[in-house]
């Protein structure tokens, strides 16, 4: 049973992170990325800032 909870929690954390990356405005994401400089791997920070603007219904923009 604990395995189930572990799985669900992991899914939850990852989903929350992915969702935040999509919904949080770009400027806030940049600020946070700056603050985490040195404390978190660079690749993670780059991914976090990565998405610029709405990519859902109009990927070209």
């Amino acid at each position: 049973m604990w395995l189930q909870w572990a799985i669900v929690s992991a899914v939850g954390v990852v989903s929350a992170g992915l969702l935040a990356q999509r919904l949080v405005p770009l400027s806030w994401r940049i600020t946070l990325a700056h603050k985490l400089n040195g404390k978190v791997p660079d690749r993670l920070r780059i991914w976090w800032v990565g998405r610029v603007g709405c990519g859902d219904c109009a990927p070209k923009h």
Partner: protein
Amino acid sequence: MTSIFPPARVAMLGSPNCGKSALFNLLTGANQKIANYAGVTVERKSGFLKSSKGMVEVIDLPGLYSLNPRTPDEAITVNFLTGQVAGEAPPERLLVVLDVTHLQRQLRLLAALASLDKPVLVALNMMDRANPAQITAAKLSAVTGFEVVETIGVRADGAAALQQRLLASCDRPLDKPASPTRDPQALYQEWVDALGLTHVLAVTRSERLDRLVLHPLWGPCLLAVILFLTFQAVFSWAQPFMHGISAVLAMVSDLLTTWLPEGPVRSLVVNGVVAGAGTVLLFLPQILLLFAFIIVLEDSGYLPRAAFLLDRLMSGVGLSGRAFIPLLSSFACAIPGILATRTIPDQRDRTITILIAPLMTCSARLPVYALLIGAFIPNQTLAYGINLQGLVLFILYTLGIVGAFGMAFIFSRFRKAQATQSLSMELPSYHWPVWRHLALGLWQRTLIFVNRVGGTILLLMIAVWFLSSFPAPPAGATQAPIEYSFAGQLGTWLLPVFKPIGFGWQIVVALIPGLAAREVVVGVLGTVYALGGSASDISVSLAPMIASSWTLPTALALLAWYVYAPQCLSTLAVVRRETNSLKMSLFLAAYQFALAYLAAWLTYHWALRYWGL
């Protein structure tokens, strides 16, 4: 130039509607949206080609009629050519695309571009529709002195020769122009005379067709019939496909229920993912059908005619004729529509168009409409084979348009008109839709939709599942477990605001994640009701569930709400960016909220009275 130097830069130019975008795609291999009517190319696109001496960058600039810019789009092109765009050096070479079926006017542009003193390569496009006796590349080349290549934008290999010649010419060093710059007007006259372009206006097939399509009476009738048929088809033709998807989802759901052991994982997968994101996926057939009609109308050249027929109405509410295309694009998604308003020269007109664009029913509202109509409106056939459900869908879309025009009218009272509004819209020739474009367009739409469902929507549904499942109900709880969760509590807390318009807490809960993606409302309802049901009763048929627990007035009120509600954060963000004003986007949200609330309230109470509940 050797390859250690920056890539050779070629600006790709042409008047709107010359098929430049299709050629650009063929040259650079990118897959982008191709529009047939004047004025829709908002972004500057560029692609790279490899030549023997290095890279060649081709920059696709917005179409323009002359070097005197009339819109922000045309201004971008002109500024780019003269090196006045920040951070961009002017291009070394020009690739000018001309539509051979409308050559005479475009020669004027070519003459103006000749005065820029840059090497010019001319692509003579749409040769598949040219009259062979008249203009050939050789003839044009002899008269103008430029290198001319024939191209066919709608054929997959139609730009092969162009690509060859482009790369070859980029490998040659830039040479100084031989003769001094000539006056464009004189140059144009010389070319026209030399080519013997006839002045007699022969009646074309398109003109004959336009006698009917643009007829003051039959024209609007035809338009109404086309629109009506579209909505009928969207509803009835999609049914078999939707049943198919529904059956698959039910199968998957049952399979997972038996496979997975009881517990949170099973609940997450079955109630969160399948019931949630799956329910949204259900509406793909309808969205595709709608787009199929839009794409075919666009490709055939009919849409500018629709703009013509509606223009009197639009100028009556104070809208510029150029607002037609952005508003039309908003039926797919308000965001490209808002971006397309860059073609509107007047600031006031542009702002008003931006403010009303979200009222045009975007495709993300369609799942909500389809769900509610499917659950509450009986599948009856009225007189003349008109389907009631399709009729209601048509009415909803009409309400959106009426609301938009009404708000435009109100907004235009507040600002004094600056300049007279011009229309000046080209009516290109009709042609049979290219089926490849339709297939490509639908495929792109499918990818966009699936990406959206598999991405943001799925993530939102997982979040909603968490919020709806925790905290677990205390011992001895009497109501359904979900009502004790965060989501349930939030819904109950916000309920007083929405009770007067007949919304239950489940609806309120669904509206919140709906701010990130409108379709999610359907998914959230799916999850909320799945979680609220008994464990042995997990099915994906949301429609019957809400049909039995909601009243008709509530459903109608929610539909009315949805027509106007400000429910897309992305749209608000784009408005803020395009108007450079946070106040404007907040105003947008506020007035839409007020409008939605009013519409829902009126509908709810009228329905209560009418159906005597």
